[in-house]
């Protein structure tokens, strides 16, 4: 190995590039930036300001936080619904004034004051909701105008009644309790804010109205077309926001026992900044109450901290402006580019030097040399089938195969002209096997291991295995279950080809070439799935040996076949029996003469082998070129290979014309014929094997003669 290659293999096989992409697929990365900002803000202000974390100081600032976070919760709900509410400051101030007016001037009970306060908020919210929801005005400008309107009204009221409030002698224990007392160390406003946040969170995530809000925010048009009452939903979000702001207003009325010109000033830009900084997306659909609260804490800590550090007038606006601009820009760019970045960085190729291989060229004299025998195969279901990855025959000679439409199709013996949909599963049925009682077991791509009874009942056997502790992607889920076979004791051995790609992206896995394929076993007695082997380059076909004491499985992108021992001294271990083949192996099945058939889905090419030694080149390729122009493994030619127990190659069959079976993903011997399937083919081929046992069938080979 040259020095360059050694460096490349260290660089690409030891540095875990793939983790970047895996982390980016996680939804929690959306929360990571705001959370980091929260930690940094608290840590830096906590260390600069002496006594920041002292109980007294915290109580004072959390009191404010209670009122503020309520307003932010309302704003968050409106933003989740795709709108924005800039009038929260006015609603807050007017609600505060309502409470003050009823309590101090009309000298009514505190409860009536609270009712007046909430009514103010609800009415104001309803006006906003009517204008934006039902009249469909622009949310930003409309609420901006209602904000000015409310502010003007508040200024008039405050200047008119300020003196009267000063002279009032009304007092109330309840008011003092709400305004001043603490409960388990936290003030009433904080408790109320926490309760409101929890209730709102549950409503948003667990209730129909909440889902409607998220649906409208996520895609207004789709929500409308799905029959959701978009206008009413939008209306309700504004009413809710008004309600939240009015509780905040009532609380501040209790705390300050009055209303002044400064009440609720700049609240709208603070609340908006808090929501956006917390990570609630503009335009709706993405965000949560928790994010809003994180933003509220960040904003309040920043603004209060700067005041306590003694910065002068205007600093608040400056900081809010910067935070808003940065947060909005990050939000927009993140939403817009996350998928782009993910698509670009997800494929993280590794280095692999493939071993020298023998030629498969006709007349080359090697055991692998392909001929043209398969081109003579008859066709079954030509043009009716799409993607018969695997084929299998039952005891009555009927033929079954999967299609890419998620169906298992049955062709009736003896002529295989008539067909029916045997079962619809969904996904992409790949490997097939019959168990002892005649159930058809199938590995369904992107779904899991399924069983179809002779009565056509579809049952899921397994969709997950144990999760490994170190994996970032959820490797419990079966992403690409590929082929299965059944041991004499009924346990189902099957492969999951890759942890990193879904079934339809199998070609990307070949470019990445990372070893994440697994061999698993499903035990029908307890219904559990266990991982037996991990770390192969695309595990594919599985076949139980004739004696049932070991199994063969193919490792496609490494062009190897392994033998896994179920019994005997080597039980639980795997050994490589065929290495460095010229083709990429797929399914493996039993042959009548005690050997094994193996399909080649494609052939190695010098160019792709070379590219495997240049992960940097493959990485650049996946980032800079459109997918149509990528270098993929050659899957336009393939064949069928027979090998013996020891891994020696017996013969190879091919279709050099390329017309009938250019690539082969499976073949099944039955009564002297070989039935051939291909995942990209539009037919099943039937080829007469000269000299084969005309009575041998696979079900009999596995489960004995017909009972």
């Amino acid at each position: 190995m040259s020095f360059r290659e050694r460096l490349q293999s260290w660089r690409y096989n030891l540095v875990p590039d793939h983790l970047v992409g895996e982390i980016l697929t996680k939804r929690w990365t959306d929360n990571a930036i705001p959370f980091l900002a929260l930690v940094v803000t608290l840590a830096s202000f906590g260390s600069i300001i002496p006594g920041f974390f002292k109980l007294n100081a915290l109580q004072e600032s959390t009191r404010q936080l209670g009122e503020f976070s309520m307003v932010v919760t309302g704003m968050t709900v409106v933003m989740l619904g795709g709108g924005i509410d800039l009038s929260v400051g006015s609603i807050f101030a007017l609600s505060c004034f309502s409470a003050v007016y009823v309590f101090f001037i009309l000298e009514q009970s505190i409860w009536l004051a609270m009712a007046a306060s909430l009514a103010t908020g609800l009415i104001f919210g309803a006006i906003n909701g009517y204008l934006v929801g039902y009249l469909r005005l622009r949310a930003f400008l409309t609420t901006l105008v209602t904000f000015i309107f409310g502010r003007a009204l508040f200024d008039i009221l405050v200047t008119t009644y300020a003196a009267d409030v000063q002279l009032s002698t009304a007092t109330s224990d309840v008011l003092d309790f709400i305004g001043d007392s603490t409960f388990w160390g936290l003030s009433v406003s904080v408790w109320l804010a926490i309760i409101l946040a929890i209730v709102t969170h549950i409503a948003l995530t667990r209730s129909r109205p909440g889902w409607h809000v998220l649906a409208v925010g996520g895609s207004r048009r789709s929500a409308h077309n799905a029959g959701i009452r978009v206008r009413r939903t939008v209306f309700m979000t504004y009413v809710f926001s008004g309600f939240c702001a009015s509780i905040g207003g009532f609380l501040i009325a209790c705390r300050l026992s009055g209303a002044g010109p400064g009440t609720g000033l700049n609240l709208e830009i603070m609340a908006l900044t808090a929501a956006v900084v917390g990570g609630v997306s503009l335009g709706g659909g993405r965000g949560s109450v928790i994010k809003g609260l994180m933003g509220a804490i960040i904003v309040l800590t920043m603004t209060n901290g700067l005041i306590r550090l003694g910065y002068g007038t205007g600093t608040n606006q400056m900081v809010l402006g910067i935070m808003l601009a940065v947060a909005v820009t990050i939000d927009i760019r993140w939403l817009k580019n996350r998928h782009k970045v993910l698509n670009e960085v997800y494929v993280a190729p590794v280095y692999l030097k493939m071993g020298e291989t023998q030629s498969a060229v006709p007349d080359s004299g090697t055991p692998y040399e392909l001929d043209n025998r398969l081109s003579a195969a008859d066709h079954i279901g030509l043009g009716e089938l799409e993607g018969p990855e695997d084929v299998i025959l039952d005891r009555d000679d009927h033929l079954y195969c999967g299609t890419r439409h998620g169906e298992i199709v049955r062709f009736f013996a003896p002529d295989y002209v008539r067909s029916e949909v045997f079962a619809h599963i969904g996904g992409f049925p790949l490997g097939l096997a019959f168990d002892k009682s005649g159930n058809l077991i199938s590995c369904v791509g992107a779904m899991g291991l399924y069983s179809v009874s002779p009565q056509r009942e579809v049952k899921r056997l397994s969709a997950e295995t144990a999760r490994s502790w170190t994996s970032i992607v959820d490797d419990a889920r079966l992403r690409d279950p590929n082929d299965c076979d059944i041991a004499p004791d009924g346990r189902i051995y099957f492969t999951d080809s890759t942890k990193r790609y879904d079934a339809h992206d199998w070609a990307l896995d070949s470019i990445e070439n990372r070893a994440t394929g697994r061999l698993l076993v499903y035990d029908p007695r307890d219904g559990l799935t266990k991982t037996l082997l991990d770390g192969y380059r695309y595990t594919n076909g599985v076949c139980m040996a004739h004696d049932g004491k070991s199994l063969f499985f193919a490792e496609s992108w490494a062009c190897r076949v392994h033998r896994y021992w179920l019994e005997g001294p080597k039980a639980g271990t795997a050994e490589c029996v065929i290495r460095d083949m010229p083709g990429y192996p797929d399914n493996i099945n039993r042959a009548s003469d005690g050997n094994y058939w193996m399909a080649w889905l494609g052939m190695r090419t010098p160019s792709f082998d070379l590219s495997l030694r240049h992960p940097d080149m493959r990485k650049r390729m996946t980032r800079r070129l459109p997918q149509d122009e990528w270098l993929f493994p050659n899957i336009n030619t393939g064949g069928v290979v027979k090998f013996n127990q020891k891994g020696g190659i017996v013969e190879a069959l091919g279709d050099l014309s390329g017309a009938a079976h250019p690539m082969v993903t499976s073949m099944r011997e039955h009564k002297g014929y070989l039935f051939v399937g291909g995942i990209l083919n539009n037919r099943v081929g039937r080829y007469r094997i000269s000299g084969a046992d005309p009575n041998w069938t696979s079900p009999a080979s596995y489960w004995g003669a017909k009972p």
Partner: protein
Amino acid sequence: MNAIGWLNLRSLNQEGIVFAIAVVLFVAAAIGLPGFIDANNLVAIVRSVSVLGILALGMAVVIIGRGIDLSAVAIMAMSVAWYLQLLNTGTSDGLAFAYVLAGVLAIGLLNGFLVAYADVPAIFVTLATGSFVFGYVRSQLITQDAVPVPQGHWVELLGGLRFLDIPIEVFVFAGLAFLLFLFLRYTKWGRYIYFAGDNPVAARNIGVPVRPMLVLRYVLSAFVALIAGLLTAASLHSINTRIVNSTLLYDIVLVAVIGGIGLSGGRGGVRNVLVGAALIGILLNAMTIIDIPLLYQNLIKAAILLGAIIVDGIINPRDEQTAQQGDI
């Protein structure tokens, strides 16, 4: 003028209606309010509306291109406040003006860049930069709310300038309006603004440099705000930064929207600004003469703006099927 109004009765549009209302209001005020028709008062109306009108011209350019500039008032007040502060602390006039001009253009560029290249909605960008400009200048660059114009400085002299007994800002307003009219109507870049405002995607597809043009609009708006600020300082001999927190910004939007410049972009022109400014000018002047307190004036203006937006929403309704996601 009336004759034209009658002729257009059949094809009545918002501009026509507003113009008619302005005329009616003018006539009513002339009859009902003593001292309204007085020459000095008329000059005062035009004068009071000039700065508003100049700012509305800048806003109009941005709105026609389907944007909005909420940082206009902050730029107007804070740039001039910084300029005067620099002068008062002894910086040479040329250098001070160069600083301020650079600052103003930088903010315009920042606005334009974030809107055009980062795809952030204009309304958030300009809200944020407006807040930033006010906060930064107020906390870092100047020491008190109001900054006076130095004695004998050209800005002060500008304020005293009269031509035919009419203050200079009226001519500046008229001149700018005429220049903008020429720009929007007869230059390639001016037409691009309409194309981009009407349908940005189509404009981009036919090869209009949509993004650089967006940046240009915000720079233009910032520059116009600087001119308006200088004129304000000229007539008041000082600039009060508290104006940023007043309702001036909404008056500007009001002038543009009520004149008939649709917020969805692509429509309107200088004439709409003039009509809108006339109506608002007469209204404000009439309210002042009737002696309505300032607080109530704000309430009335807010109500009118709300009405204007509702009418705009009814005339240009949005459809569930075609409304843009995230268009708030």
